[in-house]
């Protein structure tokens, strides 16, 4: 009996899928997420956790380079699907599962992956400072502390407490869980405190912005991401289910009201998001506004949600925050990267 073949078959019943959202292709991302929810396939947190890399939309040159770098980091057995259109999402996912279970194919892939030694083992430094999903130390060109394995050492700098700590240059995004499509925030970290930040949207250009069929569906999408970042997976899952139902045209008023009540009533969540400033307002206020919008109290989305402008202002909001707070701010502001004008970035 071929044990590897058996394990591959069992594993392919529930692969983890890393979804790369492409700016301007929100519809495809929504279709992929809905298809994954129907199949019960979990969404991977990063390339190491992924079996399937699903690119939702046709990526431009900048994002495509990042996706290729991420693909190099996905361990075998693996499958990649590039979803350009809405219609064939299910077929592509089915094909990916079949590929994962295909012992002949995966065996050669494993061998070649090990032999080439470059793909998964990161033995050569990657190029470009937004390659990868932002997990590795990405040192800029000016390291003063010598090099290790071809990478410059982190250079020390003064921190907020008057100490001299290492500064790490880390790009956040574009492939991060619950992160706006195509957004890259290059941060300089000391410990987990953001010292400098600059934001950018990859392949900013004339994309047709996604027309949400209903405001609650859009806000539920944002809420699901926010709750995911806040680490409340069960409430985030509920928000995602309701979003999918709303997009299918179901009536969700009662259930949405129940979810809004659940989130509003959570004293823990209030305690956690309290006192994190986000420009003129704060994270708690942005969350409250989003909950109101889901209830239909106010149809207008927060004015910060204006594409590129928001992306640039976003960077200023993050300076001086801790990484966990920074993620909450990004999720609360939730810039609509579909609406980025060409010529910036």
């Amino acid at each position, binding site marked *: 009996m071929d044990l590897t073949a058996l*394990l*591959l078959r*069992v*594993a392919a*019943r*529930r*692969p983890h899928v890393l979804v790369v959202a492409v700016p301007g292709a929100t519809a495809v991302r929504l279709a992929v997420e809905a298809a994954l929810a129907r199949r*019960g396939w979990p969404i991977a*947190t*990063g390339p*190491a*956790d992924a*079996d399937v890399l699903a690119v939702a939309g046709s990526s431009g040159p900048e994002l495509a380079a990042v996706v290729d770098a991420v693909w190099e980091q996905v*361990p*075998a*057995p693996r499958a990649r699907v590039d979803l350009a259109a809405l219609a064939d999402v299910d077929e592509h996912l089915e094909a990916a599962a079949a590929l994962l279970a295909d012992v002949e194919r*995966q065996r050669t892939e494993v061998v070649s*992956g*090990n032999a080439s030694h470059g793909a*998964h*083992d*990161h033995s*050569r*430094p990657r190029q470009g400072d937004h390659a990868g*999903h*932002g*997990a*590795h*130390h*990405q040192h800029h060109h000016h390291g003063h502390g010598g090099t*290790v*394995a*071809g*990478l410059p050492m982190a250079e020390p700098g003064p921190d907020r407490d008057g100490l001299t700590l290492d500064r*790490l240059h*880390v790009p956040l995004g574009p492939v*991060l869980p*619950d992160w706006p499509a195509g957004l890259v925030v290059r941060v300089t*970290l000391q*410990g*987990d405190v953001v010292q400098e930040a600059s934001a950018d949207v990859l392949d900013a250009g004339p994309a047709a912005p996604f027309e949400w069929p209903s405001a609650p569906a859009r806000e539920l999408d944002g809420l699901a991401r926010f709750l*995911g*970042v*806040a*680490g*409340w*997976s*069960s*409430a985030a*899952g509920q928000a995602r289910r309701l979003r999918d139902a709303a997009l299918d045209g179901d009536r969700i008023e009662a259930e949405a009201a129940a979810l809004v009540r659940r989130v509003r009533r*959570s004293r*823990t969540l209030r*305690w*956690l998001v309290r006192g994190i400033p986000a420009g003129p307002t704060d994270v708690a206020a942005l969350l409250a506004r989003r909950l109101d919008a889901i209830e239909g109290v106010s149809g207008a989305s927060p004015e910060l949600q204006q594409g590129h402008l928001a992306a640039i202002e976003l960077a200023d909001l993050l300076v001086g925050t*801790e*990484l*966990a*707070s920074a*993620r*909450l701010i990004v999720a609360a502001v939730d810039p609509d990267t579909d609406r980025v004008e060409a010529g910036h970035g």
Partner: protein
Amino acid sequence: MGEMPVVPEPAALPWWWALLLPVLLGVGTWLALVGDAVCSGERAAFAVPGREAARLLVGQRRRTVAGDTVLGRIGGGVLPVAALLAAAVLPLGERPVADLSVGVVWFNAMEVLAWAAVWMVGWGANSALGLVGGYRFVAQGLAYELPHMFAIITAALGAASLRLTTIVDAQQDLWFVAIMPVAFVVYLVSAAAMAFWGPFDAPVGRDVAGGAAVELSGVDRLVFAGGRWLLLVVAAAMAVPLFLGGGAGPLLPAWAWVAVKTAAVLALLLWLRHRFPTVRMDRYVEFAWVVLIPLAIAQALAVALVVLGGA
């Protein structure tokens, strides 16, 4: 009863139970995984742990540029080993595998290894998000470890012994959860924090793409995740001899009561994760030092007075 011939009752289980213990814990962990999948509303919940294990068994292992692979792998391996060693003093029914006179201290010493293990895994990957995850667990340790130690010491204080079988015997009339409810609650909260579980999963949080575990794949991830689950199960099981009267209960044999009570504590811990969002370090450290530690000390003091009054 001094005249009766003394038949020394062996306090520990026969040696071969040491081999059975990992199997038992493995089965318990497997059931806990299924329970969690049911809680999360997964489809085919019974198959989820098997599929996940198969996925990680055939998965390729990764290395990162200039990562400290040895350190990271030692860290990952320490987690399940520490959980197993901690379980050695756990009475399975009436008797543990090793009936140490300092059982409570042994348990605490083993679980503290997790502190080092998670940090080593986070550091070893040479990855910024892994590093952040590793340091988050160190900060979390600063928050949970002191209240945790006060909670388990309160149980030892109540029985005037560090031996777990003696602690169980001391609860024949009244379970410690009734005398020291605050210590029990503090123990549960810190048990979740120790296994970086539930609302205390910031070290492996989604916001840092898996934190300390960000670069783990294949069998490395299996060992790390499995070790974390074992730790959770052992921490839940330890609440039974410390606070819930061990194997005491009507009708059923002692081992069955231990299993039932452990399952109940585990269910509570699984529910915690679904009920609460992740508690960030900056808020939890404040809460632990301002609220939990004074409460735990007050509880220990109250129990000490009761013990002194009774003596």
